[in-house]
């Protein structure tokens, strides 16, 4: 090692101390570049355009007092039909719904019986 190269090395060492740089004469991999690089997740998530959920849109419309003219007209027509007795027929309750209603009625009857007994006592 010549005197000049040794001097240069000392110089870089001193520089690294003075300017708070890491002294790495052998260019060892330190993994610092993985820590230095920006995080890519947030921009990755922004690639696909975000769809606004229908519920939010409806809430926004309500807030902003937007009126859907066609929808209003449709509802008005339906109301008019119903007033004239020309609305959609009543739905026949499904078997499951009937069973549930029967159960509920039985439970209510039971409750009433109990409550009535307690009152009489």
């Amino acid at each position, binding site marked *: 090692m010549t005197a000049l190269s040794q001097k240069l090395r000392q110089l870089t060492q001193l520089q690294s101390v003075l300017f708070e740089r890491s002294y790495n004469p052998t260019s*060892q*991999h*330190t*993994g*610092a570049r*993985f*820590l230095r*690089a920006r*995080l*890519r*997740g*947030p921009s*990755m*998530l922004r*690639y*696909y*355009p975000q*769809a606004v959920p229908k519920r939010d849109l409806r809430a926004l419309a309500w807030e902003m007092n937007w009126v859907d003219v066609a929808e209003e007209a449709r509802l008005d027509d339906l109301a008019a039909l119903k007033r004239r007795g020309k609305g959609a027929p009543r739905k026949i309750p499904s078997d499951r719904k009937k069973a549930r209603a029967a159960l509920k009625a039985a439970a209510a009857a039971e409750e009433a019986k109990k409550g009535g007994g307690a009152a009489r006592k």
Partner: protein
Amino acid sequence: MPNIRILRDVAVRKGVKAHEVARRAYLACARNQALEPAVRYQAQLQLNNFGRYTRPTVVRNRCTVSGKGRGVIGEFGLSRYQFRLAALAGQLPGVQKASW
């Protein structure tokens, strides 16, 4: 309505974002030549233990309309066919059909 390929890609992107910091830390340890070989090996093992949906290389820029993975024109994020449809419909400012 996005199709399943887009939804899966979005799931990957979410996973990448959620685990990015931890992955980076392990990666830096594994690549740091100043550390003990055993430590670096353990860090690499931890890296390998992350799920598939946390790896940034699994993310692919798909067509934002059709979800196609190939033939996507990056500037518009559209596959070549969706690009043609949008361009002919005049939805892409500055894009003209060439003729010579």
